[in-house]
């Protein structure tokens, strides 16, 4: 190799190599691969029962591989929803503070590179690892599914699956950025890991409980008008949407179940006369556009926060 690489890509290369060789990544990829194989197995055994006559999603058999479950094991989508944050946190929680405690941070930053190279490269490196991993998994699931059920995916199904992978990458990138932010704020890697896990647990367990409590307190009486009930429902749904996992959930179910037409409450009037048919991909994307923008915005905000605090951080030797 005679070409001189830009220092930025030198750092990215090192980051990717570090991640791939690290034990935490090997353990995580083993867990995720195993659970995905498990969910694929349940999907394959139940796919026959999942097809009902007059099912608008019936023509999208291939997508069912990602969403079908008999209740014993969650589906592929639920697993990504649950394990994706863990992946992002694992790759980011010690991004900066470990360099600081090892004493490498001041040495690297005294090289002729821009300071933001380091933080950008940390993000890009981890994103490359996450992206290739999720894409590989999705393609593997497709491949196994193809062998097992023998029906190839249509172009639209393929595009929907790729869109699902992209949404998953954004979702994991959100958690990655959050953990990088904590790794700048907290000096100890253990503290930042705990802080990330705390946020993750809060949104995946406690947030729903709190929303339920709030919901009970403000629920309209049985005598309330339909308008009041609908606005209450909408309000509750919007509260739930503050959790990134909810946004991810809505986005992926819409993408993988083409028959989903709306994510909010619908009145009988609105549904009346509608033919239960699948939406084209463009329309599905329109339905989840707010969710997508929300996820991307959350990711960008976390990155901006970590970028800002890293640039202003005073670099001292350990």
């Amino acid at each position: 190799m005679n070409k001189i690489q830009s220092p930025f890509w030198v750092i990215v290369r090192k980051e990717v190599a570090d991640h791939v060789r690290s034990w935490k990544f090997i353990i995580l990829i083993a867990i995720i691969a195993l659970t995905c194989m498990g969910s694929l197995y349940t999907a394959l055994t139940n796919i026959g029962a999942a097809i009902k006559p007059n099912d608008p999603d019936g023509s999208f058999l291939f997508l069912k591989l990602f969403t079908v479950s008999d209740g014993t094991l969650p589906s592929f989508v639920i697993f990504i929803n649950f394990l994706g944050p863990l992946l992002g946190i694992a790759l980011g929680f010690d991004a900066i503070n470990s360099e600081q405690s090892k004493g490498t941070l001041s040495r690297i930053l005294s090289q002729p590179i821009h300071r933001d190279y380091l933080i950008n490269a940390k993000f890009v490196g981890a994103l490359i690892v996450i992206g290739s991993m999720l894409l590989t998994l999705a393609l593997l699931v497709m491949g196994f599914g193809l062998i097992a059920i023998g029906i190839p995916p249509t172009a639209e199904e393929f595009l929907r699956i790729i869109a699902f992978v992209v949404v998953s990458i954004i979702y994991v990138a959100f958690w990655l950025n959050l953990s990088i932010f904590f790794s700048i704020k907290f000096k100890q890697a253990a503290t930042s890991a705990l802080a990330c896990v705390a946020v993750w647990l809060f949104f995946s367990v406690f947030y729903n409980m709190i929303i339920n409590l709030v919901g009970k307190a403000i629920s309209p009486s049985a005598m309330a008008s339909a308008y009041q009930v609908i606005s209450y429902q909408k309000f509750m749904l919007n509260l739930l949407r503050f959790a990134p996992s909810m946004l991810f959930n809505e986005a992926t179910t819409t993408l993988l179940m083409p028959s989903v037409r709306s994510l909010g409450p619908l009145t009988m009037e609105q549904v009346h006369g509608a033919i239960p048919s699948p939406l084209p991909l463009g329309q599905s994307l329109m339905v989840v556009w707010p969710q997508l923008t929300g996820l991307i915005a959350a990711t960008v905000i976390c990155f901006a926060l970590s970028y800002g605090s890293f640039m202003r951080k005073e670099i001292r030797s350990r």
Partner: protein
Amino acid sequence: MSEPIIELHELTKKYGKFTAVDHINLSVQKGEIFGILGPNGAGKSTTILMMLGLTDPTSGTVQVCRINSTRNPIQVREKVGYLPEDVGFYDDMTGIENLLYTARLNRIPEANARTKAEELLERVGLPVDTQKKAGKYSRGMRQRLGLADVLIKQPEVIILDEPTSGIDPAGVQEFMDLIRQLREENGLTVLFSSHHLDQVQQICDRVGLFGGGKLLAEVNVNELQNEEHGLENMYNRYFGGGKSHE
């Protein structure tokens, strides 16, 4: 003497109300070994960070190799090698891999980098063909590797921040000899920060005494050489007696 290679003009750094570095004026000539001597918290490290453009001064200017460190830190860092106090390396890479990584960050072509790295390892007295990871290195070995790491970019100036802390006396002596050799052979300018009076006295041409963020005095060591305990007396005058040997 020849042209000044490091110039500080009224350099000041404040953290809130605390003044870490207080209006320092200083110039270091090319090819000199300049010692920064002072107790902990005297503002030595902060001054060094400002020279490298790693932190911005509150007021005043720093010029290294005639380049403003605050405005063009990248160009300064191309010419200045910095060995931080208690330098760290990537534990899961070998010594030479660590050096090659630094070389790549400095845009040194791969082929040159390897020969250069091997040469430098030999120079600082570390085994070249070893699979030993940097995580297994002792403190003294890390410090030597740190010196090799600083030299791989072929700097004009090297800044050493407390480079001898934590090394045994024999190691310190070898380290000092190495620095002196480097100056003689490569014409490097060396900035040597320390709180060890005897080390500074032994190696430096000139010494700046730092205390409370101020440059208290600039001393030419050779002139003091004639007096018995010249620098020591001076140090004691500023920082009180008995503390000169830690």
